[in-house]
């Protein structure tokens, strides 16, 4: 009987090792260790043994069972691993095939540039103040020290509406007056973004509508040196920490002294190229100390208060940064252009 058991053990082990797949192994398991398997059948024969023989047989058959179980587990692990390897090997893919394209929305480049400007000025305590597009001549010009028929009006080609005295704003400067009226007598630090309009033929370089961001700081102790320092900080953050800036005298009716800020050309790094007309500099913004008449029109006494103002064009800045050679791209909204931002 024990010999029979030994034979069974040996045969089962041999068959186990012949199983080439987990499926064959399961079949083996059923045949050997299953409920009606050969080991079970052998167990049932214990009744034919004498009481003396039984303990030894019982011990032996348990050992056989144990060993076969262990051998099964081991074999199963081997086969599983081999089968998994084979499966993975057979299902390898060409990882260089293209990824599945996703629909993808983006913010318009003008919005992206505006946000960058908002963020930098926000860090310096300048908040966004917006005002209307359709304005009165009074707010757009007269309160800004630009009287009727003054030669300074040549600086703005204006769209007039059919309502006398109502125009499309040529700059966001009317917001300076609105902000001063709203905030007097608090000190002011605001930026004024918005769409502006000029009576101009649309070309690669000129648009009839464009964004502008003006800025206004009013307080009791603000100087031209503060203007220079603050705008230099802005330029360094917008265009790079090492970029040179220069200030030169200029004229705006609503500021005095007035200046223009140039930034070292972004394309040629100041060496001279077509974009900077070989000067090494590109004009970025106009600025100056708020004209006393404008302060007074805003309700602030120019003998007590002073301030500075500036204005820049986000599209122009974006054109320089992204080397956009035609301003018409902005409102053309060609998706092949927009998808690049």
């Amino acid at each position, binding site marked *: 009987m024990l010999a029979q058991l030994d034979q069974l053990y040996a045969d089962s082990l041999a068959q186990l090792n012949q199983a080439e797949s987990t499926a064959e192994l399961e079949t083996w398991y059923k045949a050997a260790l299953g409920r009606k398997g050969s080991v079970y059948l052998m167990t049932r024969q214990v009744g034919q043994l004498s009481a003396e023989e039984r303990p030894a047989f019982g011990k032996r058959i348990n050992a056989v069972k144990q060993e076969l179980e262990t051998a099964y587990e081991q074999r199963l692990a081997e086969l599983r691993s081999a089968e998994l390897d084979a499966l993975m090997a057979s299902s390898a893919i060409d990882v260089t095939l293209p990824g599945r394209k996703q629909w993808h929305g983006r913010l318009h480049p003008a919005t992206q540039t505006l946000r960058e400007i908002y963020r930098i000025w926000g860090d310096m305590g300048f908040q966004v103040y917006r005002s209307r597009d359709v304005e009165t001549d009074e707010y757009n010009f007269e309160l800004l020290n630009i009287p009727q*028929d003054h030669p300074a009006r040549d600086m703005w080609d204006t*769209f007039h509406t059919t309502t006398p005295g*109502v125009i499309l704003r040529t700059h966001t400067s009317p917001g300076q007056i609105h902000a001063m009226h709203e905030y007097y007598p608090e000190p002011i630090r605001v930026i004024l973004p918005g769409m502006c309009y000029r009576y101009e033929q649309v070309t690669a370089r000129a648009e009839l509508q464009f964004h502008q961001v003006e800025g206004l700081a009013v307080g009791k102790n603000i100087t*031209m040196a503060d203007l220079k320092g603050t705008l230099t900080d802005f330029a360094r953050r917008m265009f790079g920490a090492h970029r040179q800036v220069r200030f030169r005298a200029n004229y705006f009716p609503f500021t005095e002294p007035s200046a223009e800020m140039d930034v070292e050309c972004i394309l040629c790094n100041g060496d001279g190229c077509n974009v900077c007309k070989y000067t090494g500099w590109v004009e970025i913004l106009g600025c100056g100390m708020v*004209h006393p008449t404008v302060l007074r029109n805003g309700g602030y006494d120019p003998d007590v208060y002073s301030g500075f103002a500036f204005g820049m064009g986000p599209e122009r800045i974006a054109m320089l940064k992204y080397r956009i050679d035609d301003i018409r791209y902005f409102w053309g909204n060609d998706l092949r252009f927009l998808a690049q931002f």
Partner: protein
Amino acid sequence: MLVPISWLKEYVDIDMPVAELAEMLTIAGLEVEGIEYTGIPGGNDKNRLVWDREKIIVGHILKVEQHPNADRLVLATVDYGGEENEVTVTGAPNLFQYVGQGDISHLKLYSPFAMEGAVLYDGHKEGQVKATLKGRPLRGIHNRCMLCSEKELGLSDEHEGIMIFTDEQTPGTPIQDILGDAVISIDIIPNIARCASIVGVAREVAALTGQTVRYPNYDVVMEGPPVEGKVVITTENPDLNPRFTGMIISGVEQKPSPQWMQRRLQLAGQRPINVVVDISNYVMLEMGEPNHTFDYDFLRGRADAYSSPDGPIHIITRLPHEGEQVTTLDGELRDMPPTTILVTDPAGALSIGGIMGGETSEISDTTTNVLLEAASWNFINIRRSMSLLKMNSEAGFRFSRGVHPSQAVLGAKRAAELMRQLAGGTVWQGLIDYYPNPPQPVTLQLTAAEVQRIGGISPSQVEIKQMLESLEFTVEDKGDHLLVTAPDHRLDIEFTNDLVEEVCRMYGYDKLPSTEMSDTLPPQRANTRLEQEERLKDSLVQLGLQEIITYRLTTPEREGKLLPPETGITPDDRPYVTLANPITVDRVAMRHSLLAAALEIAAANSRFQEYIALFEVGYIYLASEDGDLPDELGRLSLVMTGPRQQVSWQDNGEILALDFFDLKGVIEAMLADLHIAELTVEAASHPTFRPGRTAKLLLNGNQLGLMGELHPLVVEGFDIRTERPVLAAELDLDLLLSQIPDGFHIEPVSNYPAVHEDLALVVDKDVSAAELAEQIQRAGGFLLKNVALFDIYEGKQIAAGKKSLAYHLTFQSPGKTLTDKDVSKNRQRIITQLQRQLGAQLRE
């Protein structure tokens, strides 16, 4: 303003390179927009001709002989300052007259002379083509040098003969030193009207370099009869014409002006005409006072008629009579606007004051006697007249920016003296000068403290005084302040800030310190509206839509395409904000809709792209009923069309098109992002949208806007090239943003298992999905966490007029594990309720 450096040097020394001068002027507010070099090195144009200093020099023509072998060539013997004279072959017709005259050195014929190896422009080729002069035989005579034409030097297109200097020169002098030049172009912005002259620029250079200007000589030698009683001047509007000065010059000889003057005028952008006209232009460019020349005899002739042969000429400046017309010297007959001031005599108009002369009184080739006018005009009125007349002139350019009346006499004297010197005229004694109300000079107080307060710099009072004096201000030190009087040419000085700017300019904008603001930081306020708009944009971008920004100017016709004529509905009749001066016919009015522009963009992109998903956040402009300014209202437009997903190499099945529910899903997700819960959607009809596929969106009972599938006629009208549905919406941005709650709370996430149940209900066809879902939610109670529709069926398996909707229901309790009994109780309640409310039957 074109400023030839050679001319500028007459009034001020310039020791620095031109590029450096340009930089200095630019920083000081005279923006140099370009530098044009002639013959000398400089600039970026590598192809430009630079005259070799050794090889292109002055030659003195000593003798001209016939070429032995050619009729049309001569041999010129030239002294070029070398050891021996050079004989050179030339075909210049302007030398033929000297053949056979022997020694002509006494005629002082000097010409540019090029030596072998010199680079010049080829005189025989079109345009400017460089060529190197090589020695070669010309009809048997070896020739290695050349007398040059203007074209060969690049001075003009003139190649008819060689260039002859009319002034005496020293043989061998480099041509660079005589004709070499650089012309800087200065942008005359409104506050530097004073720099619209060479002397004006010289003043700035002098101030910036610590020099004094060498002014032109304004003395006149007057040898003619007295002017007294010859001309009487009346100005009817002294406020528009503060001063009128006249001088008489007789016996002028009509001839070309001297070469140096012609050269200067050309470099400054003026065409030389004859000596009288050239002097008039020259004086204007030199010192900034435009002046005008009348034919004296023509005026005299008219005076004989309206007065008597002994009576004076009457010059009257006045506003035009009604309907008065003037023929200007460009031959145009022009209607005079009522505010335009005219120079007239009793017989009629002579010229448009300060802008342009009249044709009849203009000097001609036969003019010998000249009445010279130098006047002063109100700059605002000149500008208005120029814009009403749509006219431009050099005189108008200057007068419309402001020329001080004091300049009139100086201009008149300078021009008269030049006519005496250069045109052989005799200047009559005295000036006719009408100047009733000379303006007071502008005097301001300035302190060092004010310079510090505005300029942020601290020069001492003495330094400030020096800076202003260098600009010709008169400055009195009053101890605690300076009393500053502006010179006449500074019409831009009105306020102390103007003086601070002058101090900053002299200090140097590049040297101003850079500081951080030390002033109090203002109260910091959020711009909630802007932040909400930006959140909305971010949400839509995350949902896969592209932001667009379109033109806010459009035409009513373009927007009318939203309402196809076939529908018989006319557009919103609230008036447009319309331009009085549109620049193009397709941008005449401020928009009423964002959607029309978005559909135009969709149409343009549909030519090359199938998937289009766009949005715009912006404003529309509705003329106001009670005020001049329109209402500016916020709108959000959405447009989607195309395949629902991108074609991939992995797909082989058909890709579905975006439909109504894609757009609706975007709107729902956007609202969820903004934490707006209360959306109601109702079926609606509108001509822009396809009947049966149009919805009205409401937030808390207020209409948010319409959405739907675009009407096929609208798709066609906008020429959107797609076979797929085009989904669109235009929403009220102001309402939308107003519904964003100030804050929100989260719901705790339950740790107990959720139970999922499916439920299919059969209802009448006209019961809306929204109604059914709402009733299920209401009946399901607080344990019903989610109701998700997964199938709709109409057909044979159910009764006619009915439809079946199948839902996944999710039950979950925040506090316990639900039992089957809990769930079936809720489920039964839903069935019972819906049966009662909507007659719904459970589908078995």
